[in-house]
């Protein structure tokens, strides 16, 4: 990581979020999140918010605690302290948050808007009820199953209900067959979007690396999420593929009611696609703002370059030139 990475990307129009989004309500709020593993404090008193319709990036040097934050949000870890709240529907329901916290239950709200406290939910319910989907740093597809089957497993809960928890499906009733056909159509749409329609019946493990990344994102999207969490989606992609990934994520943000939270090491990708960046170092938030602001933040440059405080001005001016 060097200052050149920050320089390389000219401040494009894409980097500045559209004005109406700046005032959008939060979809995710993390308050005073702390995660301890024995004596090690991986995340320390972290607070940030991700706005609806934004692509929010979580960046930081290696070991800054980014993946730990992800695992807390998606329910894979139970945080030591803090609150993680997710909301969809009518933003009015945010006003319930303090009462919900005191009540000790998982969710509040009705059909109009729902509010969830993710730290109180087991991992599968975070996806099932609070509609948070995630991908993994090292791709986790079902390699022996076909591409299509991967996308159908992602629609498990909807199909399970349609199959009357297997009873109706086992009898082969029409209502289930229709639901299955709809699920296949949904999967086909996604396969078309990621350009894998012709490989639908091949084992997922036989796809090239870049295609597996795209498939994993499509699979997460098949759960119909409100918030999509991507753990290093550009890792291992060539420049052409990561440029495509950027367009793909913009398409998801603009066409679906899905906000994106991502961890990424590739600064050119982060600066180009994200609307909002949160920078972590040693488990603490050191900066929070638009790509423009982050690019010039002396603390961020210091964290990435490991220089002493006195040397920022040079590094900062280098980056801004």
């Amino acid at each position, binding site marked *: 990581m060097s200052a050149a990475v920050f320089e390389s990307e000219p401040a494009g129009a894409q980097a500045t979020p559209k004005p109406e989004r700046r005032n959008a309500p939060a979809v995710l709020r993390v308050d005073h999140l702390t995660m301890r593993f024995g004596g090690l404090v991986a995340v320390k008193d972290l607070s940030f918010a991700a706005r609806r319709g934004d692509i929010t990036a979580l960046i930081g040097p290696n070991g800054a605690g980014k993946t730990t934050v992800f695992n807390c949000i*998606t329910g*894979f870890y139970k945080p030591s302290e803090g609150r993680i709240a997710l909301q969809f529907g009518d933003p009015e329901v945010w006003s319930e948050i303090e009462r919900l916290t005191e009540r000790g239950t998982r969710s509040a709200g009705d059909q109009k808007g729902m509010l969830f406290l993710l730290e109180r939910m087991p*991992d*599968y*319910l*975070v*996806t*099932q009820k609070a509609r948070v*989907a*995630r*991908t*993994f740093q090292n791709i*986790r*597809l*079902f*390699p*022996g*199953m*076909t591409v*299509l*089957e991967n996308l*159908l*497993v*992602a*629609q*498990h*809960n909807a*199909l*399970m209900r349609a*199959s009357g*928890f*297997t009873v109706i*499906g*086992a009898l082969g009733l029409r209502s289930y067959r229709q639901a*299955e056909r709809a699920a*296949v159509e949904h*999967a*086909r749409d996604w*396969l078309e979007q990621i350009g894998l*329609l*012709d*490989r*639908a*019946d*091949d084992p997922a493990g036989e796809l090239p690396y870049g295609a597996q990344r795209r498939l994993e994102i499509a*699979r*997460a999207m098949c*759960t119909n999420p409100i918030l999509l969490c991507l753990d290093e989606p550009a890792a291992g992609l060539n420049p052409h593929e990561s440029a495509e990934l950027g367009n793909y994520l913009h398409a998801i943000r603009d066409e679906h009611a899905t906000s994106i939270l991502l961890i990424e090491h590739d600064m050119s990708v982060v600066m180009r696609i994200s609307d909002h960046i949160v920078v972590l170092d040693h488990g603490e938030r050191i900066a929070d703002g638009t790509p423009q602001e982050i690019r010039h933040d002396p603390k961020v440059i210091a964290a990435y370059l490991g220089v002493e405080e006195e040397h920022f001005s040079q590094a900062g001016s280098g980056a801004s030139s």
Partner: protein
Amino acid sequence: MEGAGGKPIDVVRACKDTAVTALIAFGLFLPLIGFNTVLNIHNELILQTRWPLLAILVGVIAAGRFVYSVLIAPWLQDSNVWSRPEVSIAGGRLTKWLLPFILGFAVLYPALALWLAGFQGAVKWIDNFGVQILIYVMLGWGLNIVVGLAGLLDLGYVAFYAVGAYSYALLATTFDLSFWILLPVAGCLAAFWGVLLGFPVLRLRGDYLAIVTLAFGEIIRLVLINWVAVTNGYAGIASIPRPTFFGIPFNATDEGFAARFGLEFSPIYRTIFLYYLILALALVAAAITVRLRRLPLGRAWEALREDEIACRSLGINTTNTKLTAFAMGAMFAGFAGSFFAARQGFISPESFTFMESAVIVAIVVLGGMGSLIGVAIAAVIMIGGTEIMRELDFLKIVFGADFDPTQYRMLLFGFAMVLIMIWKPRGLIASREPSLLLGESPARPAHELAKAMQAAVVESKARA
């Protein structure tokens, strides 16, 4: 000198190999075979030498090695038997082609046995081979759901078989209920025990799960041995009512099956009936498995086998999914168990040792995880193979009257497993049939692709 593949055979190297092999064989066999200690009539230990035998053995091994280096090794290299990639579609096509044959054979088998072995001889062939193999096919298919589809290594599967058998035996002897009522009851009880075991255990994975299920299997067996008041301990439960032909018993009375249908009494009718009963039970298990595989539940099982963490990230309740797999597998074992008790008329804890679990797991692994036909073939080989050992009396002529081929059962068992694991490490039928096809890929169908690849290989060889 030219080998099969057109490569010259290196005779000098083969001779060198032979010499080294002979030397190693000599070194090993000198103390093992060359010297022999015997007691003479004065009760003294005397050292005998057996040079001719030693020479013969070393000679045989050297000759074998020479033949291997000159003929077999180049042929293996040439035909690439060992490194041949498994073309999955070929396996799938083979299965489709085999299916009607296997089914037809299974249905016609009793008639075939009657025709070939006559009324007296057929009982053995239908009961020892047919029924015995089909019980293991059913158990294999049940465990296939747990191990093959859901990927949960269960080493205590025989426990559910025992629950089924004892449920039928106890309820039938105490309450005098019919087999047809108790069959589903036994299945449900076994499934219930599957869930009961599942709850505390299913947060474990892989090896840990295997150890705990192994322990569970032993617990059930020890309870059966020690709870004498209920299970009668080692002595087992005798005179368990046999299944009836929908109410008509198979006996020599006027009310019996033979008399009712105007036939001469023979035990063969019951045997044939049992054969078709277990065949029907096994086919029902297979049909349910095939059906479930195409439903979201079955796909979730397979996804669980592939990657549990990914499953959870997609909102799948992995605990429930595992429990259903356990319950379903246990239920089939319960059916098989109650059938076993009804067929034998006598059960004891001896029938439910760890060895049985190991054999069932071996059948599933050898057959190919998840493949119904593979599991059936493996059951035929493993169980039929051990039964056929009893029939090899002619070996006594070769090896002397003391020779008992059944004692070499385990040796052959192990040998067969090693061979299959080298030849087909993923089981006899390793290909997986997708649960659903989009069938839209503009590319050529895979079997055509495989054919084209083969043609290309042949062509390139012809050119060389």
